[in-house]
């Protein structure tokens, strides 16, 4: 008894399949990939041309992939770095005493408050980027019978925060929620521990780095929701006469929009909001952040241009390839290929070639990134400059996007010459007339 492979068919006894029939049996399963195979074989037929196409796409995709990963990593590093430098401007009620520090990280405890309607109006001002509203109060105790010492309690909106969470040194592995606290770097409560505030149990969700800004280092931060739940107890324990109701704010931290200057925004705020005071950070930091953001946008534009030029190159190359293969395409049409099938075959061929080039480019990009990691990033780390690499999942997603984009560019680059060819009469193509 002989072994038989799963795809093999049994012949009636006494009859042997001819070589042609045996081949037909084998091809039953392979035929569905016929057109993809046809495209691959066509690419393989012109090795030098395919190699050049693949190389060009690989270089471009590799540059785009490496550029995108580095750019995103630099952006992340910058976001963290600049967020840690604080906001560009702080708006507080007039009469608030302000302790000017190098970094605007939080408002100071005050008896005065702003209406929270100010947020919507501020957001509409030209030059205003992100806004970080805060409510702050200094309490004499935390209401749990421990030694009395003043503590700053700060309520903030975790979704809009620009100066607290970037400073997190450690945190629990879940989302920040109601009942969670973030404590300043000089506080001693351990991460994950319970902390009683006015008889209510809270969890230390995260701890900040030391920032050399008093309120920031010793404060207890919580969401507005948590803050509001404690409001009555807080106000009983505080000497402050400030109205800390849900519609009040102690201050608003502002990040300027790209291109805006602190002076412009200061004038606009003072003109539109009587009874407020503005404190601006050092303009150098703002300029550096804005400059680097613009630079990254410039790099992005360059990457887009690279992809567009690759698409044009593929288009020109496929025009030449199609001209060379007119007779073959005319023949295909003569034996029954519909116009869309001709377009499909050529687009598939281009997509396979450029996707392979894209994949190759990403592999080269990974090698390049490894060398960056071992040189530049290592050097930066030694200098104490953190470099926030993307996670492997994010890098893989960018690689996948590059490969998909490369194959789309290939297919779209071949589309116009393929479509023009498919509109021609088969006989013209067979005679290979121009």
């Amino acid at each position, binding site marked *: 008894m002989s072994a038989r492979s799963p795809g093999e068919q049994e012949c009636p006894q006494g009859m042997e399949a001819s070589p*042609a*029939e045996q081949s037909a049996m084998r091809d*039953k399963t392979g035929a569905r990939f016929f057109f993809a195979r046809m495209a691959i074989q*066509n690419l393989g037929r012109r090795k030098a041309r395919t190699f050049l196409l693949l190389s060009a796409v690989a270089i471009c995709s590799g540059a785009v992939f490496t550029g995108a990963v580095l750019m995103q990593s630099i952006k992340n590093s910058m976001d963290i770095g600049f967020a840690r430098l604080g906001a560009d401007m702080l708006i507080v009620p007039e009469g608030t005493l302000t302790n000017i520090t190098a970094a605007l990280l939080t408002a100071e405890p005050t008896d005065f408050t702003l209406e929270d309607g100010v947020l919507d109006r501020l957001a509409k001002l030209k030059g205003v980027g992100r806004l970080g509203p805060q409510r702050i109060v200094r309490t004499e105790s935390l209401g749990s019978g421990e030694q009395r010492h003043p503590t700053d309690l700060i309520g903030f909106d975790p979704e809009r925060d620009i100066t607290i969470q970037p400073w997190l040194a450690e945190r629990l592995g879940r989302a920040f929620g109601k009942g969670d606290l973030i404590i300043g770097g000089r506080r001693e409560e351990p991460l994950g521990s319970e902390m009683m505030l006015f008889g209510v149990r809270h969890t230390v969700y995260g701890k900040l780095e030391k920032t050399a800004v008093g309120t920031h280092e010793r404060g207890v931060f919580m969401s507005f929701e948590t803050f509001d739940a404690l409001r009555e107890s807080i106000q009983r324990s505080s000497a402050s006469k400030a109205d800390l109701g849900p519609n009040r704010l102690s201050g608003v931290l502002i990040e300027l929009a790209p291109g805006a200057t602190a002076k412009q925004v200061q004038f606009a705020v003072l003109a539109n909001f009587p009874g407020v005071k503005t404190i601006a950070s050092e303009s150098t930091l703002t300029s550096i952040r804005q400059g680097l953001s613009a630079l990254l946008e410039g790099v992005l534009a360059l990457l887009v241009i690279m992809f567009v030029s690759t698409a044009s190159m593929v288009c020109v190359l496929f025009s030449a390839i199609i001209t060379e293969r007119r007779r073959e395409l005319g*023949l295909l049409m003569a034996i*029954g290929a*519909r116009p869309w099938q001709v377009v499909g075959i050529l687009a598939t061929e281009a997509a396979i070639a450029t996707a392979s080039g894209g994949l190759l480019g990403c592999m080269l990009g990974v090698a390049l990134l490894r060398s960056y990691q071992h040189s530049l990033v290592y050097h930066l780390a030694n200098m104490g400059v953190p470099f926030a690499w993307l996670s492997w999942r994010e890098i893989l997603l960018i690689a996948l996007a590059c490969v998909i984009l490369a194959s789309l560019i290939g297919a779209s680059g071949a589309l116009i010459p393929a479509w023009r060819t498919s509109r021609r*009469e*088969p006989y*013209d193509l067979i005679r290979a007339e121009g």
Partner: protein
Amino acid sequence: MLTCEGVGKSYSTERGLVHAVVGVDLRVPAGQFVAIVGRSGSGKSSLMAMIGGLSRPTRGVVRVSGAEIWKMPDSRLAEFRSREMGFVFQFPSLLPTLRIIDNVALPALLNSRKEEAAAYEKAAELLTELELADYVDAYPHEISAGEQRRVAIARALINSPSLLIADEPTSDLDEQTEIEIIDRLYRLNRDRGVTLIMVTHNLALAQRADRILHIANGGLVA
């Protein structure tokens, strides 16, 4: 089976309008073997291309199996060509990157993708019938010119067409192979009842046809 009424084709060139085919009227009953003979440039290939749905006439009507082919949209015409017509060209017309069996199965795969298995079975049968069973996995460059022409005949028959169009099918073959190919086509016409229209400039080969049409200066000559 095939009717041409006042079929003509003109081309615009730098030297002016060229009338390749002028007012051809033709009627070919089903199963007939017609040879069209004429000198180079007489318009015989242009006429074949119009009959075969490969080149649109500038005037006149072409009907195949009762259908006015040039009134069909491109996609339907492509499907009609594949279903009703088979072509054997005057040049090596196999796709070089495909195996022999793929080349033969291709017209069926282009038009009935859901029946790939049947297409390959039919291709294998035809190759066996044309004594090419040993070359199914070979590539076109691995077989002789005569064998390539036989493969083209197998490909032309894959969809069991009612009309077979052969445009100088033996033009680049030696005499012995030429006779062999014409024999094959003759037998297909006789055994399968396929209507056969063959363009040739070889009068001796044309003698085997049921009817010989002479073409000169784009028109049929009595």
